[in-house]
Structure formats: structure tokens, C-alpha cells
């Protein structure tokens, strides 16, 4: 018995919402990066489930792209975090506001 589509979509919604909540509520930059990963993966679940549902492989291909982009983003994001941490010994985003207008 196959799992119905709505379950996948609810799972996806849950993962994405946890990501959004984490991103908005936490101040540690590492946690925020992880939250972004959660959001992206929530989207991926959605893409793959719908792709399977309508029998169209393009959704799964798109999911691979998202994974690749997420990997790159994580690499760059972590590199920035490391550079920043070396300079100011903190990973707390509220203390980093050089970009204030």
C-alpha cells in the first residue's frame, strides 16, 4: 500500500516550517545555516513526491539541482562563518551588522 501524496506534502510542510522557525528564532549562525538546509530539503521532498505523482522526471532533476546548489551554499556559507569567527570570535548574528545603512 502506497503512502498517499498528502502525507509527503505534510512532511514537506513540517520540515520547511521547522526550517523557517529555526531561521527566524535562532541567533547562532551555524544553526541558521542548518535551518536553511532544512527548508531546502523540505522543498526537495515536495518536488520528488509531486514528480512521482504526475510521473514526470523533471521534478526529480530539479531536486538534484537544489541539492547541488545547497551543497555549494553550505560550503560558501561555512567558509564565511569560519572567516568571520576567526576575526571576531563569535557566531552570534546580532553582533554582526557591518551592513547597516
Amino acid at each position, binding site marked *: 500500500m502506497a503512502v498517499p501524496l498528502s502525507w509527503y506534502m505534510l512532511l514537506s510542510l513540517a520540515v520547511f516550517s521547522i526550517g*523557517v522557525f529555526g*531561521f*527566524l528564532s535562532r*541567533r547562532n*549562525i551555524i544553526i*541558521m545555516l542548518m535551518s536553511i538546509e532544512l527548508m531546502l530539503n523540505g522543498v526537495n521532498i515536495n518536488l520528488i513526491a509531486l514528480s512521482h505523482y504526475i510521473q514526470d522526471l523533471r521534478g526529480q532533476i530539479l531536486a538534484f539541482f537544489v541539492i547541488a546548489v545547497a551543497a555549494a551554499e553550505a560550503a560558501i556559507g561555512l567558509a564565511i562563518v569560519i572567516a568571520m569567527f576567526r576575526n571576531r570570535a563569535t557566531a552570534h*548574528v*546580532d553582533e*554582526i*551588522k*557591518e*551592513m*547597516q*545603512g
Partner: protein
Amino acid sequence: MANMELQWYHVLIPFLPLTGFIINILLGKEVTRYKAHWFAVSSVFGSWLCSLATLQDVLGGKIIDADLYTWILSGTFKVGVGFLIDPLTAVMLIVVTTCATLIHIYAIGYMHGDTGYYRFFSYLNLFTFCMLMLVMGNNFLQLYFGWEGVGLCSYFLIGYYFNKKSAADAGKKAFIVNRFGDFGFGIGVFMVFLTFGTLHYADVFANVSSIAGKTVNFLGLNVDLPTLIALLLFCGAVGKSAQIPLHVWLPDAMEGPTPVSALIHAATMVTAGVFLVARCNPIFNLSEIAMNTVAIIGALTMFFAATIAITQNDIKRIIAFSTCSHLGYMFLACGVGAYAAGIFHLYTHAFFKALLFLAAGSVIHAVHTNNIQFMGGLKKYMPITYAVFVIAGLSAGGFPGLSGFFSKDEIIWSAYASHSSVGKFVWILALAGAFFTPFYTFRLIFRTFFGEYRGGLEAEEAATHAHSSSHGSGHSSHGAGHDSHGSGHDPHGHDSSHGSGHDSHGGHGHGPHESPYIMTVPLMFLAVGAIAAGWVGIPPLLGGGNHFAHFLQPVVGHPEFHGTHAEEWGVMILSTTIALIGLGLAAFMYLRKTDLPERISKQFSLLYKILYNKYYVDEFYNLTIVQPTLKLANKVLVGFTDAKIIEGIVNGVPNLIGIFSQKLRRLQTGIAHHYAIFMAAGAVFIVALVILLS
């Protein structure tokens, strides 16, 4: 007249000087430098050879009217770059290329060592190109192109010593004064197009009779169409040919180097106006008002310029006023319908006036001043210059047998014998002019070449210092005082930018010396022209055939004269006598009773001052046009339009943006969470929008 295809040598006439210009302007600074004249002179000389071949064609009865290239094509409006080569063009070609070649050669010596040597020759080449396009064009637009081109080159060359303020100002003055004339000229060309639907000479002149007597609504007035077109075109001629009231630029144009004065402001460019009137003679012939205007403006300019010339002290300005005056003669001739006589005078005038200028340049080259107060006695130092100067003077003054005599006599006779309603009036002025020309020319010659050498530049500088230190002693004998108005005096720029050249052939300290052969040989050639060029137009009365007028007849027609042979003899003898009296009086006043001029100037000091200050025309224009324009510019344009409107917009837009960005930048807190909330809120907002609207 047989038609003929365009030949390669016709095309080369204008384009050779263009090639010379391009080579020198691109390579002059680095490559050709002080060899710039190789290309310049050889290209103009090539044009001259091609012109001779062309003259041969035209003398063989051929007329060429062919387009080389379609320049503008828009609906029914079609303008080509094309050539019309007929007797009138052939005469102009010979005048332009002959003078240009000789003057280019002369300039090798005159401009020797000048830092802008290549620049000078490239402008001179460009000028020759434009002038040739002007005279060879077969439509009004090409005429206009050449017209503006020569004006531009005139501006370049008047302001050639651009680091001297008076020269730069004189260039601007020439250009701006010409704007007034060219504005009318431009409208005239538009009117021709509106009326005839074409700008091609042949088509316009073929249909010209259809506009006779028609009127047109111009600025709310019903005016006679031929009169309107003719007068508008004449506006351009008045500006370019320095006729009253736009004559003020020509004397100032003497700030340019002397070869420029000779080529542009004597022999060729300033005669373009006469060429225009002669070329458009079918239009002018339709309007008596326009013809009379041309005649009267010419006669008045001739008379007033001649009277000014007798009081001036600047050698080049005297000749400049003489040019004004002779151009007046040409217009006078055209105005009474004797176009051939006008063009004949143009042709002889080119030789003797170019010669006068170049000889004057030779004098300036030797004494380094333009002021004849400080010359004198140069006869023994500069025999060749002296000889050619006298020849040119005699020719200009109308001494029997020389070029100027035949052309001037033809004009005076035409004025007397024509049917023109103003003929007799302009005839009297023409006779008066016949007195003044030899008088001022020989005043110049006697002051320059006879008597004792009065020291040249050193004496002038000493006098200037004395004058300025003993300010108010008021002893300015015969106008020896400096010209006080702006553009005044002009020898120094020549010297300072030029000095190195002199040392190489003679050096200072031994008094003035004759110019090198590179300068005197062209003078001799021009002297031959000044003597003999007029022999092609000897009237039947003196046993000639008046070949010149017959040659031009297909283009300009031949006026009907009424007058007997006896009258013709009478007029000729009268004008010659008057000319000789003028010469004699000059000799008497400046050789025998040398204190007389000063006494006369004291006696009639008011008249003298008016003449010396050129009838205060410059001052009048300054007061009525220049100052109000400056005020308008300062108060309205600078004070309001520029400061309020333009600056307001230019500064207002960035100021507004600045204010808004001051507000907007507060959004950029730099805190990542604020951005995240905005993003989330934005996403929610968009999703909500999609759901609500679908």
C-alpha cells in the same frame, strides 16, 4: 553648347586639396611636420593643372553638369554631390587654384619655422577644397556646404594664433557676423526648395520665369517671391563678402597670417558672395528691388570702406578696407545687371589684391610691425617687394593698361550706361571710389617705401612705451596713438610665434631685408597677373574683343547698354583722370608736403576721427547688439534659465533622490534577522495574494 561627361580631372580638382588636408591633419604632427608643404603645395598645384584642363574643355564649348554621388534622397527631395562646370565656374576655378597655388608657395617662406606649420597648411588645403566645392557645385546645398566650409576655415585661420586674445576674438567675430548673413542665406535656400521643389541649379533656373510676379506670404506680409528669394540669398552674400552692414568682421580678420588674408580675405572666399549673385542671376533679374539693393549696398560699401581706408595706419587693415571697397564695386556691377563686369573685376581683383596682401606680408616679415607710421624708406631695402607693390597699387587704382583698369572701367561704364534706375547714383559713387582707391593705396606705398626708415618694431615699441608713460600729453600726431579698441594692433603675435624663422635667413639688427625667393617669386607671378590678367577683357573701344564678357555670356547674359562711343570715351577718360588725381594728390601729400596730412587731420579733426574710427560702426554694434545680447545672456540665460531651470533640474533630481534614500536607508539595519523576517513576511504576503486572487 555640347554637354560632356565628367572626367577624372574634374573630380580631382576639389579632391586633391582634400587629400592634402587629410594627410597633413593626420600625419602632420608626427610625420610630415616641416615638410607639410610638400603635400599641400603639390595637391593645390595638381588642382591648378586640372583646372587648366577644365578651362580647355569649357573654352571648347563644353558644359558639364553631372552628379558624382547621391547625397540626400528623401521622397522627391534629391540632392547630389555634383559638379556644374560652365564658363562662370571655369573662371572661378582659375582664380581660386592660381591664387591658392601661389599663396601656398609664398606661405612656405612666410610661415617658415612656425610651430603650427602643418596645421596651417592643412587648414589652407581644407579651405581650398571647400572653396572649390562651393564654385563647382551644381546645387544650392553643395553651395551652402562649401559656403559654411570656407567660413569654418576662415575662422580657423583668423584665429590661427589662438593664444593671442585679439586673434581668437577676431575669429569669433568673423564667424558670428557671418551667422547673421548665413541665416538669411539658409532661409533663402529653403525658399528655393519650397518654390521649385529642387535645389539643382539647372532645374531651378529653367523654371525661374514661372515665379515672376508671384507673391508669397512671408511673416504675414505679401511679398514678391523673386524679390524675397533674391534678397535672402543676398543676405548670405552680404555677410560673406563683408558688405555694409556686415562688413565689420573683415578688418579684424587681418589678425590671421598674411597668406590667409591674401587667399581667403581678398582673392577667394570674400568673393563667394559675388559668385553667388552672378550664379543666381536668373532669380535676381526678376526683381528690380533686389537688383537695386545689390547695387546700392555695393556702392555704399565701396564708398564708405574707401573713405575709412585713407585714415588707417595698419598696413593690412588699409588693404582690408580696400578689399571691402572693391567687393562693393563687384556688387555694384552685378546690381546694374553687368554680371560679367562684376566677375571680371573679381578675377582681376584676385590677382592685384592677393599681390598687395602678399607684398604687405613681405614688408611685415621684414619690419615686424603692421603700423605704417614706423615703416618708410623700404624701397632700397626691398626692391622686389617695392616693385610688385607699385604694380599692384597701379592695377588696383585703375592705371590705364593694367588689369584693374579694364575691369574697373567696365564697371563704371556699366553703371553709367545701364538701364538700372539707380545706375546714375551708383555711377557717381563709383567715380568717387575711383579717386579714393589710388589715393589710399599710394598713401600706403609712399608711407611704406619712401622717405626715411622709421625704425620698425623697435621704434613702435619705444613709441608705445613713451605713449603709455607720458599718458595724457595728448600728442598723438596723425593717429600715431595705439588703436585703443580691443582688437587693435596685431604685429606681435606674428613675431613671437614666428621669431625663430627669421634668424635662419638674415637675422635682425641690419635693418629690414628683402624676403627670400620662395616668397618673392610668387609675388612676381602675381604681378604678371596684376598687369596682364585684364587683357582678356579689353573693351572693343580700345581695340579688344571683350572676350571675357563673351565667354561668360551663356551664363550671365549681357546687359543692354545705351550710350554712344563718345560717352564711353568720356566716362573712361573721366574715371582715369579722377584716378590720376587721386594718385597725384597722394604723391603731393605724402612725398612733397609731408606735413600736410597732419594739418588736414587737425583742421578736420571731427571728420578725421569719424573716419579713423570707421564711422563708429563697431561701437554702434557694440552698443545696440553686443551689449544687449550680453545683458540678455547674463540676466536671462545665465541668471534665470541656467541658474534656475537647468541647474534646478540638474541639482533637483539628485537632491530628491538623496532625501528619499536618507529615509530608505533605515531599512538596511544590517541585522540578518530583520532581513529574514522581511523575506518570510514577503513570502507569506505573496502566497496570500495568490490564494486570495485566484
